[in-house]
């Protein structure tokens, strides 16, 4: 990305995000029809599902950046990886908190060990461990190497986790679940969903840009500090 596009993004993204969020919330709360059986609570859908998509997307960015880091050895890929991992975790937390809030009134339980729920939880734990590992290594290039390895292994694990839990659960009788959303969405609902997805995606891009900038400054600071302190 060129320097000008980068600066332009910094100026425009906050405004675009704010506008999109306002529109999205207007559409979701005032225009979109209320779901027949679940009622108002179904509106959590517009926050829950886009967040889930974006958190998976963010973890995919971690994976790609990690591969790119190991291939090129350029520190910027490492900065991208850590930025995406942190934001992915934020979105993942949104998914894991809005999920039970929605499940309780609709399914009657906070949590069920269903394939999607459980794999999201495992995903969450993998990336928490990823960030903890980064904190536990002080040398920057070593940290980047180790984190990239974890970023790659962690992402490779995701489909296996999903499949294993699906097999595990489908071997047992399913718990009481009213089939999830997605089987035929009202066009109006699609509209609310797409606005929310666009708003959250733009929020992701903005966060990502700022977080990446922060990481770059932190790396510069770290190297300046190392230059100043006498070598042991």
């Amino acid at each position, binding site marked *: 990305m060129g320097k000008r596009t980068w600066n332009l993004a910094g100026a425009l993204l906050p405004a675009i995000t704010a506008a999109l969020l306002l529109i999205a919330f207007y559409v979701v709360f005032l225009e979109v029809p209320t779901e027949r059986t679940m009622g108002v609570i179904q509106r959590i859908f517009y926050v829950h599902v886009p967040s889930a998509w974006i958190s998976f997307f963010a973890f995919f960015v971690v994976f790609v950046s990690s591969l790119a880091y190991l291939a090129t050895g350029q520190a910027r890929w490492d900065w991208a990886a850590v930025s995406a991992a942190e934001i992915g975790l934020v979105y993942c937390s949104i998914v894991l908190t809005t999920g039970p809030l929605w499940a309780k009134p609709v399914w009657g339980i906070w949590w069920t060990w269903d394939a999607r729920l459980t794999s999201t939880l495992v995903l969450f734990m993998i990336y928490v461990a990823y960030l903890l590992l980064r904190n536990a290594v002080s040398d920057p290039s070593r940290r980047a190497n180790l984190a990239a390895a974890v970023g790659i292994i962690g992402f490779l694990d995701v489909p296996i986790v999903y499949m*294993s839990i699906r097999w595990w659960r489908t071997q047992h009788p399913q718990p009481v679940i009213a089939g999830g959303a997605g089987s035929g969405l009202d066009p109006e609902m699609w509209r609310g969903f797409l606005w929310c997805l666009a708003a959250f995606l733009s929020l992701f891009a903005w966060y990502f840009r700022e977080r990446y900038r922060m990481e770059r400054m932190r790396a510069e600071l770290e190297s300046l500090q190392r230059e100043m302190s006498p070598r042991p």
Partner: protein
Amino acid sequence: MMVFALILIVIFSFAFEPTAEETRRIAGGLLWIAFTFAGILGLSRSFARETTNECLQGLLLTPAGPGAVYLGKLASNVAFMLAAEAVVLPIFAVFYNIGLGSRFPWLAGILLLGTWGFASVSTTFSAITANTRMRELMLPLLVLPISVPLLIAMVEATATWIAGEPMREAYLWLQLMTGFDIIFTVASLLLFPYIVEE
């Protein structure tokens, strides 16, 4: 490692009535919790041991290369874990009243596949955490979530074995374990040079 697994099994017998039918069904899970927790403790020393006198760097300088170092570590870790399991398993069978009986080759297969997969992930992460702060805590934090599919497969396959059901029903789990072993052994081999790079 072995003693720790034994202690865990004894502690489990306080938490779960060892002779109840209920416990028979969860015995596979208990066995694997004991093996994996003990394994993680043992394996966390795997690479940390090599940090004194830059021993790991010395190993990497040999013409064998990093891949060979990884496979050697993996093989020795599998051997150590299997040795511990070989001692703990008969004692477990006695405590929990489980006949090892005629279908033992199946259980041996499950143990080998499960231990291999778990050791392949743990060996990699043991190399990753060898030079980090709070090494003993970091290793399980990384290994356990990654091993979730393997843990599910090991526990389910072992439960099928203990329940005396036909092993055909566990094929899916055996396949999953084999797949996990292959994927993570290969991925570790590819990533290992970067992990030990100074």
